[in-house]
C-alpha cells in the first residue's frame, strides 16, 4: 500500500515536471492548453501534499488538540467552527476577484510562458505560503488583523504604515478596475444596457430580501441571476434598436462619470438596498463562471495561438511598457502573490477554522485554486489569434487611430490581422468595434466566448461574449461599491483623530463628505486613465501591481518576524525567500516607473517629454501633472514599505542577537473539546 502511494505521488510529480518541461521547451508549434492545465494541476497537487504539509507539520506544528479561536471565542457571529470544505469555498470566494483574470491577460503580451511560470511557481512558493502563514499567525492570535499583528510583532510604525498603504492601494485598485469596466463598455450599447439593468435587479433583490422573503438569499440570488440573463438578451434587442441604441452607446468619459456617481451612491445608500444583494449575486455568478470555464477548457482543449515569448519581452510592448523583468511579475499579482489576500487571511477566515489542520486546505489550498483561475485566464487570452489579441488590447496612441493603421502596425510586428477580420469579429459579438479595447476585459471575454461557444452549447458567440462582460463588470462594480465604503470607513477612522465630527459613522453629513472624498480620490485616477492617450492601463495597472505586492511585502515581513521568533533562523527562508524576490521585483519596477529615462516607462521622463514639446495646452499640462502625481504615489508607497522593511530588519537582527523581545504572542494553549459532529 505504501509502495502504491509512492508510485502514485511519483507519477503526479513526474507528470508535473514533464508538462512544465513541455510548456517551457516546445517551440515552433502550437501547444494544446491541456499541457498548461496538467502542468499547473499536477504541480499544485504535489506542492500541496509535500510543501504545504511540510510547512504545516514542521514549521507551524499545527495541532488539532489545540482549540482554535472559533471554538474558544464562539459567539454565533464571527467566531464559529465551520466545516473545512465550506470554509474553503467561502475563503476562495473572498480572495478571487478580477485580479487573477485581468493580470494574466495583460501579461500575455510577453507570450504565454513567462506569465504561466510565474503564476505556478509564484503561487506555490510565495502566494500560498503568504496566505497560509498569515492565516496561521492570525488563528494563533485570536483572529487578529494584519495591521494589529504588524503593530505587535514589528512596532507601532508598522501598524500605521500598513493602514495608510491599504488606503492608497484601495484608491489605485478602484480606479484601475473602474477603468477596466469603462474600456469594456465604451461604445457598446449591448454591454452598457446589460450592466445598467443589474442596478434595478440588485435593488429588486434588496427589497425582496428585506421585505418580501426575508432571509431567502439563495432563492433571491437565483431570481436575480435569471433577470440578469434576461438582460443580456434584452441588451441584444437594445443594440439593434435605432431609438434605444444611441441612449446606451456611451463614451468613455460618460461611463467614467456614471461609475463615479454609482460609487458615491453605493457608499452612501443603505447596504441592504444595493451593495449586499449585488455582492451575493456577483459571488455566486463568479464561482459558477469559473467552474464553467474549467469545464469548457477541458471539453474544448483549445490550442494556444500566442507564442511562448513575443518580441515584447524587450520592454517595447503596446499594452504596457517595460521589460519582462520586473513587469511580468507585478502585472500578475493576484494569481501568483497578492498582498490583499493577507487581509482576508487575517479577517473572517481565522475566526471560523474549527481545527488547526484545516488551515492547510483553506490557507494554502485556496491560493492554489486561485492560481488555477489565473492559468485559465491565461489560456483564454492565448487562444485568440495574436493579431486579434493585440488589436483589442493596444491603445490607439500606439498602434494608430484608424482600424487600417492599427491593423498595419500590428501586422508589421509579425502578428497578422486585418481591419476586415476585426470588423467581422465585432459584428459576430454584437459590437461596433473591437479595436483599442484596453484593460483586458474584452479580450478575456472574447477568449471565454470562444471556449464556451466551442463546447457545442448552442448559444452564439455574441451571447457568450456579453455573458462574460456581464460577469466581469458585475463583480468589478461590487468591488467598487464595497471598496468605496471600506475606504470611507478607513478615512473616517483616520479623520476621527483630527476632525471628530467627520469620524462619526452615523452622521449623514460626515458619511456624505467622506464618501465624496474617497470617490474623488479614485475618480481622479479613473478620469486620468480615460484621458490618457495611451489608454491609462499602461500607467495604472503597474502602479496597482506594485502597490499590491508591496502589501505582500508587509505581510511577509510580519510572517518572517513570527517564524524567527518561533524557530530562530531555521525555517525563516520559507517566507524570507519570497520576500527578497518581491522586494527585488517591486523596488526595481517602482524605480523604473519613476526614474526610467524612457518616456513610455518612466513617469518623470514622460512628464519631461511632454513639457519639452513646448506650447503646452491645458490638456497637456494635466497630463504632465498626472505623470508627476503617479511618480509621487509610487514613491510614497516605496518609502512606506522601505520603512517597514528597515524596521523589520532591526527587529530580526535584535532577535538573532538576543537583544530584542523574541516572545511569541500566541494565545495560550487550550485543549479542544469540539465534537466530530460539530464539524
Amino acid at each position, binding site marked *: 500500500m505504501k509502495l502504491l502511494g509512492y508510485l502514485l505521488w511519483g507519477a503526479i510529480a513526474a507528470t508535473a515536471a514533464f508538462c512544465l518541461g513541455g510548456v517551457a521547451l516546445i517551440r515552433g508549434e502550437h501547444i494544446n492548453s491541456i499541457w498548461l492545465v496538467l502542468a499547473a494541476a499536477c504541480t499544485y497537487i504535489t506542492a500541496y501534499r509535500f510543501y504545504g504539509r511540510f510547512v504545516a507539520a514542521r514549521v507551524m506544528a499545527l495541532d488539532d488538540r489545540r482549540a482554535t479561536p472559533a471554538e474558544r471565542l464562539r*459567539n*454565533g*457571529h*464571527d467566531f*464559529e467552527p*465551520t*466545516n473545512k*470544505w*465550506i*470554509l474553503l*469555498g*467561502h475563503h476562495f*470566494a*473572498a*480572495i*478571487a*476577484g*478580477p*485580479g487573477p483574470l485581468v493580470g494574466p491577460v495583460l501579461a500575455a503580451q510577453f507570450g504565454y510562458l513567462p506569465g504561466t511560470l510565474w503564476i505556478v511557481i509564484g503561487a506555490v512558493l510565495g502566494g500560498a505560503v503568504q496566505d497560509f502563514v498569515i492565516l496561521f499567525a492570525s488563528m494563533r492570535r485570536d483572529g487578529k488583523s494584519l495591521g494589529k499583528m504588524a503593530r505587535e510583532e514589528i512596532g507601532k510604525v508598522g501598524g500605521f504604515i500598513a493602514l495608510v498603504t*491599504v488606503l492608497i492601494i*484601495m484608491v489605485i*485598485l478602484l480606479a484601475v*478596475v473602474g477603468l477596466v469596466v469603462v474600456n469594456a463598455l465604451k461604445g457598446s450599447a449591448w454591454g452598457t444596457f446589460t450592466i445598467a439593468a443589474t442596478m434595478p435587479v440588485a435593488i429588486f433583490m434588496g427589497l425582496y*430580501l*428585506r*421585505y418580501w422573503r*426575508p*432571509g431567502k*438569499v*439563495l432563492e433571491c*440570488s437565483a431570481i436575480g441571476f435569471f433577470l440578469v440573463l434576461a438582460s443580456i438578451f434584452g441588451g441584444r434587442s437594445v443594440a439593434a434598436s435605432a431609438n434605444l441604441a444611441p441612449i446606451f452607446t456611451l463614451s468613455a468619459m460618460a461611463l467614467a462619470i456614471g461609475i463615479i456617481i454609482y460609487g458615491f451612491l453605493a457608499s452612501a445608500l443603505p*447596504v*441592504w438596498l444595493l*451593495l*449586499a444583494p449585488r455582492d*451575493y449575486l456577483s*459571488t*455566486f455568478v463568479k*464561482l459558477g463562471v469559473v467552474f464553467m470555464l474549467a469545464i469548457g477548457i477541458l471539453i474544448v482543449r483549445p490550442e494556444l495561438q500566442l507564442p511562448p515569448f513575443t518580441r515584447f519581452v524587450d520592454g517595447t510592448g503596446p499594452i504596457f511598457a517595460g521589460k519582462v523583468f520586473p513587469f511580468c511579475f507585478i502585472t500578475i*499579482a*493576484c494569481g501568483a502573490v*497578492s498582498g*490583499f*489576500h493577507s*487581509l*482576508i487571511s487575517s*479577517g*473572517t477566515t481565522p475566526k471560523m477554522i474549527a481545527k488547526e489542520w484545516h488551515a492547510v486546505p483553506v490557507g494554502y489550498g485556496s491560493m492554489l485554486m486561485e492560481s488555477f483561475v489565473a492559468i485559465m485566464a491565461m489560456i483564454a487570452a492565448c487562444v485568440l489569434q495574436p493579431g486579434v489579441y493585440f488589436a483589442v488590447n493596444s491603445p490607439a496612441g500606439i498602434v494608430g487611430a484608424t482600424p487600417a493603421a492599427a491593423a498595419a502596425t500590428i501586422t508589421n510586428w509579425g502578428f497578422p490581422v486585418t481591419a476586415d477580420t476585426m470588423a467581422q469579429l465585432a459584428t459576430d459579438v454584437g459590437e461596433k468595434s473591437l479595436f483599442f479595447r484596453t484593460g483586458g476585459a474584452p479580450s478575456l471575454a472574447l477568449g471565454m466566448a470562444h471556449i464556451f461557444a466551442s463546447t457545442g452549447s448552442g448559444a452564439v458567440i455574441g451571447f457568450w461574449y456579453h455573458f462574460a462582460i456581464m460577469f466581469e463588470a458585475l463583480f468589478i462594480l*461590487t*468591488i467598487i461599491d*464595497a*471598496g468605496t*465604503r*471600506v475606504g470611507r*470607513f478607513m478615512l473616517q477612522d483616520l479623520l476621527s483623530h483630527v476632525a471628530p465630527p467627520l469620524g462619526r459613522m452615523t452622521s449623514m453629513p460626515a458619511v456624505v463628505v467622506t464618501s465624496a472624498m474617497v470617490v474623488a480620490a479614485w475618480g481622479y485616477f479613473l478620469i486620468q486613465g480615460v484621458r490618457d492617450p495611451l489608454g491609462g492601463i499602461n500607467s495604472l495597472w503597474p502602479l*496597482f501591481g506594485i502597490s*499590491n505586492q508591496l502589501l505582500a511585502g508587509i505581510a511577509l515581513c510580519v510572517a518572517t518576524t513570527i517564524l524567527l521568533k518561533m524557530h530562530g533562523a531555521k525555517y525563516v527562508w520559507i517566507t524570507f525567500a519570497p520576500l527578497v524576490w518581491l522586494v527585488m521585483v517591486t523596488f526595481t519596477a517602482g524605480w523604473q516607473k519613476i526614474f526610467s529615462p524612457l518616456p513610455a516607462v518612466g513617469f518623470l521622463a514622460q512628464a519631461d517629454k511632454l513639457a519639452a514639446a513646448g506650447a503646452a495646452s491645458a490638456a497637456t499640462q494635466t497630463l504632465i501633472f498626472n505623470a508627476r502625481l503617479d511618480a509621487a504615489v509610487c514613491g510614497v508607497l516605496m518609502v512606506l514599505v522601505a520603512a517597514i522593511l528597515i524596521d523589520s530588519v532591526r527587529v530580526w537582527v535584535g532577535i538573532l542577537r538576543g537583544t530584542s523581545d523574541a516572545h511569541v504572542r500566541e494565545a495560550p494553549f487550550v485543549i479542544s473539546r469540539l465534537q466530530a459532529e460539530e464539524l
Partner: protein
Amino acid sequence: MTLLRRVGRLLLATLREIGDENAYRRHLAAHGRQHSGPEWRRFSEERFRAKYARAKCC
C-alpha cells in the same frame, strides 16, 4: 450515488455559508429566537455592518 449526494449537500452548504443563510441560522439558535422579517433585518444589518467594513479582495 451517496458520494454525489454528499457533494451536493456540501455544495449547497457552501452556497448557504456564502449567502449568510447559515450565519442567520446560527444567530437564531444562539439567541433562541424564531425567524421573522424584523429578526432577519436585525441580523442582516449587524452582519452587513461588519462585512462591508472589511476590504474586498482584488
